[in-house]
């Protein structure tokens, strides 16, 4: 006896969302993207940055910024990666990063972690005093002044830098260089340096 044709077969009532999670068939539950900061200690050796950036690009994780620099241990570098992903994507990005051989440890930082970005903003120098006044408002300082331009150095949260760049628009911003977010957990918590 041949079994029923496709549309006559027994069917379960449930379904899954696009992230493979079982959901109430009546409800539409999706995870919204959120910003997450991943802090990773990696071996300080050639090719690591390329390996990490290639991982994020080929798995289509949405990177907002990526910074890398040395640590007190010459063999270890720290990467700070800001991504915008739904929760399962954040978890997946963290696990894929952990899987890379040069990776020593990875943590997602708490939302209240200290986050800072440095920006250099070059503006028209016709009104140096006004530029200085705006720089003061954001705790910045002029680091290079010519007859034509003033370059201001600023540090702060991403939002603060955004606001400062906006405020400097009145002086005709000629160039901006931002470092992307550097971040550390508040309090005594540190990343494992050897596992």
């Amino acid at each position, binding site marked *: 006896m*041949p079994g029923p044709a496709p549309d006559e*077969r027994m069917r379960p009532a449930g379904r*899954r*969302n696009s992230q493979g999670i079982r959901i109430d068939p009546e409800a539409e539950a999706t995870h919204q993207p959120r910003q997450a900061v991943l802090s990773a200690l990696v071996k300080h050796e050639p090719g690591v940055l390329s390996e990490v950036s290639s991982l994020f690009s080929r798995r289509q994780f949405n990177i907002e910024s990526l910074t890398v620099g040395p640590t007190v241990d010459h*063999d270890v570098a720290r990467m700070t990666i800001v991504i915008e992903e739904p929760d399962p994507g954040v978890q*997946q990005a963290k*696990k894929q990063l952990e899987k890379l051989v040069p990776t020593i440890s990875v943590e997602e930082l708490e939302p209240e972690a200290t986050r800072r970005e440095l920006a250099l903003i070059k503006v028209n120098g016709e009104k140096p005093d006004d530029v200085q006044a705006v720089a003061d408002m954001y705790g910045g300082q002029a680091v290079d002044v010519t007859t034509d331009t003033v370059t201001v150095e600023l540090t702060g949260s991403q939002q603060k830098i955004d606001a400062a760049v906006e405020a400097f628009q009145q002086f005709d911003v000629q160039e901006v260089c931002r470092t992307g977010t550097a971040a550390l957990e508040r309090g005594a918590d540190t990343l494992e340096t050897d596992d």
Partner: protein
Amino acid sequence: MSEGAPVQQEDETEAEEEATGDKPVETGAESVVRALENAGAEYVFGVQGGAIMPVYDALYDSDMNHVTMAHEQGASHAADAYGIVSGEPGVCFATSGPGATNLITGIADANMDSDPMIALTGQVPTNFVGNDAFQETDTVGISQPVTKHSYFADDSDTVGFDVSEAFALAEEGRQGPTLVDLPKDVTQGETDVQPGEPKAPDTYHPPEEADDANVQEAADALAAADRPVILAGGGVIKANASNALRDFAIDYEVPVMTTMPGIGSFPEDHELSLEWAGMHGTGYANMAITNTDCLLAIGTRFDDRLTGGVDSFAPDAEVIHVDIDPAEISKNIHADYPLIGDAKAVLRQLYDAMPAAPDCDEWREQCQTWKAEYPMEYETPDDEPLKPQYVVEKFSEVTPDDTIVTTGVGQHQMWASQFWTYREPRTWVSSHGLGTMGYGVPSAIGAKLAAPDQEVVCFDGDGSFLMTVQGLSVAVRENLDITYVVLNNEAVGMVRQWQDGFYEGRRMASEYPWIPEFDKLAEAFGAQGFRLEDYDDVEETIEAAREYDGPSVIDAIIDPAENVYPMVPSGGDNGLFALNEDHLDQL
């Protein structure tokens, strides 16, 4: 490499010198070869070339067997198959530039299927790197996305250590391919540093047992299930967990299906077996996976060819996911019970934690009903052309249980997986995740050398066979007793099937009316050729090909109209598999 590497070498050098005191190394190349010897490698599949010559020169004095392949792609596929069958990393060599890029397909294939393999590639001397020198490519850059890790050796003193580490990394944890790029000055350079034994990198810690509390929760859920089923993936075979799986499933009477890479982990002729699920899996496996309320999935990455559309995949099931790679947990399908660990260890843990067998007589009966309702059948007319399924079935009937089947990719691959009865792990060797046409000819070479006492049958398609047919020269030279069966429908059949099903029969570039006569081509290579067209000749031809001592090729002219069913269209609902064209039209 980290600064620590050479220091560690010095520590081990003394002990090493005692063990291999009469064999000091003098060059980087010799330490590369020594590292492979120390790891127990017996075979190297490769092709010579300028930048890799120092390593080949060191191989001259080694007891390892080098199999000269006809093309580097064949070298990587042969090494891959060797790894699947032996469980230990297959080794392949190629020179820089085109040699390395030709290896990439096989490396990517191994990466998708988690097959253990180590590739060593020659590279231009370090002072030329970055200058677009002759036969220079950024091999590390090209290979990094398709390996577990790629190494650039930059020092004659540590190059052997790199190879040792790459070998260990390929084998341990979730297996996969690794690559070491070897600049010519590094391999030619002088060193007396012994490479030591294989040791995985210090940042690599594959898990062993899963958390006990998680295991207990999962076991309780499984024991309480009404419609439990086990999905055994390739990870079961890689972890040598087939016996643990059999003990668990049989003692607790839980029906078992496999993924394609999991074929052989559970005997397909066992009452509890549903064979394999997915796009061309059995109707009964796809009914069971759709209707289960508790899915114990072991060593699988929930590939889309298995799941079909995620929204309709096992929609009522709590998922217990056992995997050695934490990144596979909840990647495609959410795991309600993640069990991170080695498949064998976790299966033993689960076995001990089960409070009772699930009470599911009705469900088992339902599975048997589905087996009766959706048997793997095909039409066997009295007249030719031959049905390909018949050829596969006849082969399966007359060959020993431990016969190894390798395949190319396409319709023939599906028939070989559907109509052969697999009973043992490591007897099914195929290209799953990457779907590499041309995998067949060289994979049979690697499989045969890994298991010289087992019969090896390679089912190939005419399109797939043509892609790597030059490998026959290797099989002839090495006198490998392999039976190649080309299921010849003069088409890239799977593409043609999709064109007929989904592109209104517009057969663009899928028909091959210009193909050679494969029996005669085989003879030209020095293999034994057979042409098979009649039902009456099937058994006799199979016997003659099997009896021939050396490679033989059966050009089996099959019904070009035959298609692969059951079929779940891409992204479709597994429970709505089509058994024929009419069903497809309804979907």
